[in-house]
């Protein structure tokens, strides 16, 4: 048995080698096997001294269970108030410890990569919120970017500033963030997310006072440690109501950081409803040349016009530079809105049920109950697989998105169907594209579970490339329907 396992292991290694051959042909074979992937970390010694591959299935299963639990929890308490307008500062520790190589290639690079992903995901889920970046280096905290709603500018600023030295100081970072966050309006939720590499903090004064100050200003501080649990971080999070977690490896750290993307439950003191003035600018000036107020540059192409002062901004959501009005579009509101009414948990589909799906074919539209054309049926049976009731996946934002999109696609083109949005610019050509994509994905769906997932992803990417904003308008309408 041992031999067979060995050979299997070897076989796998060879396969990997073959694949890598194309990627980095410049290295010697032995170098290749060590350079990029830490093969020894995939092995562990058991009681009798044999080497075995690490059994990850238990971990994965636990994660899966946890997510399931989390989902059912949110479903049960679906009416939790959540802070939708968040002002989040991400504090990135760029002290000496960030140069450690235990994450490849270095903690700093990993963190930067994950912050990038997080920023995108964050704005995707919280379009009304804003992020600022703070770095800590040589014991001093610097504000890298001010609060803003554009992911690109943050990411650009961060990537340009990588490099680490000196000690790290939580207190300095908190002081800086506290000063910055104190100015924001009271309806916004103040949050700090600290990505901490170091194992100690070198503070100029009493950090306990600073923590109390943050607590008084209702700043929710969360920490993700990259090395080990520290008492002060735990204390900080406990005091201010944040969460503290420590990453075991890269993938875990990514998971942890992304957990911060959905909005946290609102703090009781902030739960009072308040009215916020917002503008919904028109998309205008297609092809015309104008100066945008946000970059102070001459721009050609699509822009938005502030409904109050008529200034021109080039992206949404933002705050008008001239009159200070919050500018959003309705899809943004809608996207935030779905945190309050999350979609119901999916029922897991067994392979046998998947096969049955052939037979379950509804011939009426979800929206208008009119019978569908025979040519639509192919699409429908595919779509049914992805609808929430039988979706075999959970939690992943992509899955949620897919469910949303497909739900929206369930509408038909019959006249008078409530799912056919009024004035929607959804040309038959676009729908046709989706159908193509669906058809491309359709073939292997019924055979196995895992290929289904893979295909699903590519399918979603394809749709995303089409035009997410427009899709979301439809999703928004869908909510009223469900």
């Amino acid at each position, binding site marked *: 048995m041992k031999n067979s396992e060995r050979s299997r292991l070897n076989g796998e290694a060879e396969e990997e080698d073959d694949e890598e051959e194309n990627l980095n042909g410049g290295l010697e074979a032995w170098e290749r096997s060590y350079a990029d992937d830490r093969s020894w970390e995939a092995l562990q010694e058991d009681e009798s001294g044999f080497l075995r591959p690490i059994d990850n299935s238990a971990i994965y299963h636990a994660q899966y269970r946890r997510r399931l639990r989390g989902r059912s929890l949110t479903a049960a308490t679906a009416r939790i108030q959540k802070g939708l307008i968040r002002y989040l500062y991400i504090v990135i520790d760029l002290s000496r410890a960030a140069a450690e190589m235990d994450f490849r290639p270095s903690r700093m690079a990993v963190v930067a990569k994950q912050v990038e992903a997080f920023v995108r995901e964050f704005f995707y889920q919280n379009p009304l919120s804003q992020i600022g970046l703070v770095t800590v280096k040589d014991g001093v905290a610097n504000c890298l970017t001010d609060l803003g709603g554009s992911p690109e500018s943050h990411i650009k600023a961060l990537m340009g500033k990588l490099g680490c030295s000196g000690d790290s100081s939580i207190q300095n970072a908190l002081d800086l963030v506290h000063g910055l966050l104190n100015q924001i309006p009271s309806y916004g939720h103040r949050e700090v997310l600290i990505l901490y590499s170091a194992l*100690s903090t070198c*503070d100029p004064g009493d*950090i*306990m006072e600073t923590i109390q100050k943050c607590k008084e200003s209702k700043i929710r501080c969360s920490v993700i440690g990259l090395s*080990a*649990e*520290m*008492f*002060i971080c735990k204390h900080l999070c406990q005091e201010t109501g944040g969460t503290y977690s420590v990453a075991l490896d890269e993938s875990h750290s990514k998971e942890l950081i992304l957990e911060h993307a959905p909005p946290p439950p609102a703090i009781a003191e902030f739960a009072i409803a308040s009215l916020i003035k917002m503008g919904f600018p028109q998309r205008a000036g297609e092809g015309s040349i104008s100066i945008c107020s946000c970059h102070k540059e001459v721009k050609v192409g699509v822009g938005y016009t502030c409904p109050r002062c008529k200034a021109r901004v080039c992206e949404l959501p933002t705050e008008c530079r001239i009159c200070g009005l919050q500018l959003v579009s309705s899809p943004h509101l809608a996207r935030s809105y779905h945190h309050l009414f999350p979609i119901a948990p999916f029922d897991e589909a067994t392979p046998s049920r998947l096969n049955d799906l052939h037979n379950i074919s509804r011939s009426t539209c979800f929206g208008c109950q009119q019978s569908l054309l025979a040519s639509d049926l192919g699409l429908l049976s595919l779509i049914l697989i992805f609808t929430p009731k039988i979706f075999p996946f959970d939690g992943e934002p992509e899955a949620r998105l897919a469910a949303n999109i497909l739900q929206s696609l369930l509408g038909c083109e019959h006249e008078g169907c409530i799912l056919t949005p009024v004035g929607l610019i959804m040309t038959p050509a676009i729908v046709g594209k989706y159908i193509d994509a669906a058809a491309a994905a359709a073939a292997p769906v019924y055979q196995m579970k895992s290929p289904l997932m893979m295909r699903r992803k590519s399918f979603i990417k394809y749709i995303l490339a089409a035009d997410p904003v427009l899709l979301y308008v439809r999703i928004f309408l869908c909510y009223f329907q469900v």
Partner: protein
Amino acid sequence: MIFKLEDVTVYFPYDNIYPEQYSYMLELKRALDAKGHCLLEMPTGTGKTIALLSLITSYVLSKPENPVKLIYCTRTVHEMEKTLAELKLLHNYQTRHLGPAAKILAIGLSSRKNLCVNSRVLAAENRDSVDAACRKRTASWVRALAAENPNIETCEFFENYEKAASAAVLPPGVYTLQDLRAFGKQQGWCPYFLARHMVQFANVVVYSYQYLLDPKVAGIISKEMQKESVVVFDEAHNIDNVCIEALSVSVRRQTLEGATRNLSRINQEIERFKATDAGRLRAEYNRLVEGLALRGNLPIADAWLSNPALPSDILKEAVPGNIRRAEHFLHVLRRLVQYLRGRLETENVEKEGPVSFVASITAHAGIDQKTLRFCYERLHSLMLTLEITDTDEFLHIQTICDFATLVGTYTRGFSIIIEPFDERMPHIPDPVLQLSCHDASLAVKPVFDRFQSVVITSGTLSPIDLYPRLLNFHPVVSRSFKMSLTRDCICPMVLTRGSDQLPVSTKFDMRSDPGVARNYGKLLVEMVSIVPDGIVCFFVSYSYMDEIIATWNDSGILKEIMQHKLVFIETQDVVETTLALDNYRKACDCGRGAVFFSVARGKVAEGIDFDRHYGRLVIMFGVPFQYTLSKILLARLEYLRDTFQIKEGDFLTFDALRQAAQCVGRVIRSKADYGMMIFADKRYSRHDKRSKLPGWILSHLRDAHLNLSTDMALHIAREVGNFY
């Protein structure tokens, strides 16, 4: 939860019970059934105290026909308070389920310093002066004087207590020291005397080891305890040392000088009394003729330290004639002091048995053994007669009398060692005469003989078969329990080689090797960079610590450590150490991180907990053997070999390993805690050493972690996910 343990219904105040607690109770119950003594080892943090308390109280409840009293001995006041708090919880639980039938009286007893509520008495700075200040206000003659002269200060609490007389009782309940003080304040009764009075009636008494082991104290406090008592010694891994210390006396030059001063002071007093109140001295003389046993009619407040663990016949015997008169007794003491001074003048180290020492005293100073034996009692009686209340001034002469009594009483198990200077500093003459006790069983014997069951329990009692031999008793149960853990919360490892693969050790011949110091330094430098919050390092001795820190300082290792964490060092000065500890805690709290350098067998290693983030890693540099050239230790080893057939090596290893286990055990104080333990010495990998570690450490010590070098240890430290 309530459950049946054989025929006893156990009331346990928590909803869950750990398996080891259950088996602990089971063993304990069997010992109680058998009315015998037992030795139980269970790691700290597993709820030993509560298991013990709830079993014994439940045992009493379910067998009302033979009421058993629980005498619980702790080492420190802090532990006493913790025990009483647990007991309170338990008591509430039991009364909730059983109603008033479960009511018991439980009190803590401590010194006046901890119990006094008189603000003027408390103003005194140390224990002895508080005692003296109290006596100044409560001694019977002072109070008699005060009745006539209102200017003489008395203690209102004591007066009230006396007035209430037999009405002064505590209602049933659990009283911590704090509660006692509050109760005393509220009622206006002196809590100290109240507690001392109530000890006889209480179902549970919690007090310090000394009250049972130190014969001088045990006599007054514990003599009325009934035979049907269960005596518990908690944290008893050092019980043999406590016993030995209780019977050891050391005399220095200062002691002798002080004693001379005391003697002349006593002389003046005698002269004064002769002039004013000669009848008093005569009355004392008559009393002494009748025998010491009659002394019992003195009021309780005056009964201070008395009655060493003497053979009972001495109490019935009359004081020998030659010291009955005060002046004669003074002459005897003068001669004794003079003789001791002469002995201290020696140039060489001398070692003698008590018999020859007494013979030499008889020859040179003309004091025979019987006279020596009565010194303590006689001095005590004299000081009462002379109405001396500031007893703290007379400590020196008391020491001399202690010495004389012990020398006169015991012929075996002791030796007298005179050293003209400290071994480590041969240039500074500091003569010291030590009467050292070698036999721990002497002090503890009366306890074993008198009480029905004695329970000795601690987190580290390994190897468990050695204690019965050291203390000379036969346990009916001796068991060691392991900790049941939901996850591996300790990670012990043995580091035998440095990063350069050279062995590391604090063995005598390798001690001065710079390579070892460098390797130790490297280890620490690597560790400080990957371990969060607090790290505690234990060294084998102060001198070794000083030496190695100096080396590290020269080679810049200390600076490297300081880059990651602050460094704090234990010194022999208590105040300094306390300050360092405070700042260490602060540094851990605020996230700066800190390293604490400490010494095995020091104050810190014995009494300070480094739980939670205060100790995430503990490194034991070397094996903490005792200073093997010490004359006292040599004498003790010889005695152990001759009397108990314990090999020197065995005892030394046992002692060193229990110290090491005690040191590393400082970091785990509860099951939710976690930490790494590194034994940095190649000798730990040897079986004879390793096997003497307690079971709960051994069970986590994997074979793969037995022979590591620095970088391997580092890798494991990174690997262990337990910092998550």
